[in-house]
């Protein structure tokens, strides 16, 4: 069980790195508490910049800092960072190619009952459509740590989306398989390939367990690197299974499901089922209640896998 949220891991990695490198700067838009960046602000106040509730400014200031040699990490709720400041992300960060890391916190439906204004169900689509923008959705605290340690080493733009709360571990402490920009195959399987990102990886693993009990072999691929998408891993997983399921905490259009479908359709055509949030404001509730309602949990994913395999059997008969 993970005890700390992925966003807290990001802060912890940055504090450690920031102590050694004074050019590492964290920025928040009155979001240091919600981003779990208070620790950074307190420990390294000279390297912390508060922009107030001004997300466009947050991103542009980060770009200006980066142009002058700083290594900024701008942390703000994913809903605002990805769409309120979309143009700044596109022009000042991606197009101008500034070394800004955009940390979208409390992503997806983390804010639960706060409603659609606070949900970021469009951020994957929005950010992936921008040239020179990388998009990462780590699945647990351990992978988040690996990812951040890699991102600190490079000087290119990236958008990282994490959720609000601590989530169960996918990996084991001290044994985290991680290669930058390569998906992690969490488990192999031959009947269905479940390709998931972010905090949907854990329920996908749970689904694979449930399916195993029923004699169905499910692969689970952790596509934390939505862009650059690990196409080789998609093709390999899809080729080795009868059907593909994608799972993401995102709108049904333009996200992981769309991208995987493009790759599968072009390279190894077969049935792809996209499990995602609806194309509508989601039902009111905690994120867990929302996931349960839409079948974005182990049981729901397993059920969909059985359905799609059942359809395939019927069509073969």
């Amino acid at each position, binding site marked *: 069980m993970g005890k700390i949220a992925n966003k807290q891991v990001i802060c912890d990695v940055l504090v450690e790195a920031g102590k050694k490198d004074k050019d590492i*700067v964290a920025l928040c838009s009155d979001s240091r508490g919600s981003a779990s960046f208070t620790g950074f602000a307190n420990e390294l106040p*000279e*390297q912390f*910049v508060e*922009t*107030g509730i*001004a997300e*466009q*400014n947050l991103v*542009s*200031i*980060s*770009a*200006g*800092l*980066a*142009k*002058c*040699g*700083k290594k*900024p990490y701008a942390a703000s709720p994913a809903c605002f960072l990805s769409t309120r400041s979309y*143009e*700044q992300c596109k*022009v*000042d960060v991606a*197009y*101008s*190619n*500034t070394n800004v890391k955009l940390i979208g916190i409390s992503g997806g439906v983390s804010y639960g009952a706060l409603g659609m204004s606070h949900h970021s169900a469009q951020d994957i689509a929005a950010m992936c459509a921008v040239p020179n923008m990388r998009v990462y959705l780590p699945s647990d605290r351990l992978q988040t740590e690996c990812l951040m340690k890699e991102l600190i080493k490079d000087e290119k733009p990236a958008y990282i989306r994490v959720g609000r709360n601590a989530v169960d571990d996918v990996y084991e402490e001290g044994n985290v398989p991680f290669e930058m920009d390569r998906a992690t195959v969490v488990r192999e399987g031959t009947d269905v390939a479940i390709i998931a990102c972010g905090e949907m990886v854990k329920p996908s693993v749970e689904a694979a367990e449930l399916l195993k009990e029923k004699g169905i072999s499910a692969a689970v691929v952790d596509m934390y690197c939505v862009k650059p998408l690990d196409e080789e891993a998609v093709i390999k997983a899809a080729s080795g299974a009868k059907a593909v399921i994608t799972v993401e905490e995102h709108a049904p259009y333009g996200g992981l499901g769309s991208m995987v479908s493009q790759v599968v359709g072009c390279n190894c055509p077969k049935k792809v089922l996209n499990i995602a949030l609806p194309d509508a404001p989601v039902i009111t509730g905690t994120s867990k209640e929302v996931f349960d309602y839409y079948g974005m949990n182990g049981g729901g994913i397993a059920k969909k896998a059985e359905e799609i395999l059942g359809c395939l059997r019927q069509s073969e008969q």
Partner: protein
Amino acid sequence: MENLKALAYELREDVIDIIMSGKAGHIGGDMSVMEILTELYFDQMNVGPANMDDPDRDKFVMSKGHSVEAYYAVLAKKGFFDRGDLVANFSKFGSKYIGHPNNKLPGIEMNSGSLGHGLPVCVGMALAGKMNGQDYRVYTVMGDGEVAEGSVWEGAMAASHYKLDNLCAVVDRNRLQISGNTEDVMAHDDLHERFGSFGWHVIDVADGNDIDQLKEAFEEAKTIKGKPTMVIANTVKGKGSSVMENKANWHHKVPNEEELAQIRKDLKERKEALR
């Protein structure tokens, strides 16, 4: 010192060559901003092809990116790229000389084009200077229509909050934007008071096409401590030829042959009168 007044007219002639070659360009704003760019690049800023890797160089962002022809003309004159290459290829298929600034070209720090980005980016640049204890200065030029962008005011608020006295912004106050008079489109004639209330030191330049007055303003800005400076440069859109001056329809217009002849004649006469 070089005769910057005449140089501004020589650069206007370059702008005409660029626009006639590319058959496109924001000619009115190119002409109004020319003295501002000339004074900054040839007198105020320690920027040139030899020192673009120097972290202590002054920084400039062309926030009104549509006046790119004026900016390109200045950068070519500074030696960042070849004037002939620029004129031959501006806006042509596959050209690196795009219709808005892009930092794949030498001398350009940041890409622009969408308005309201330059000032907030410059806040970051100025803040970096403060954090590092460097003494470079940061400049940006905005259009007057541009100040309707909300992000300008986010940047303005942050610049005074962080006491960025190493930041100097300029508004090219030519009073015209694409739809007409700025006061009809979105009034802001009290710009001085507005920036003042945001904690800025504000300097009005009565004639923003006068190199001497601009120099005086930029020198004053350097003496201001604890707050950023806004220079409101009252300029003339289309400055340089009666064909274009103070005419909103010259926001982006390519002269016809008759207009071109008159513009070239006017620019040459004014340049020679200043020599």
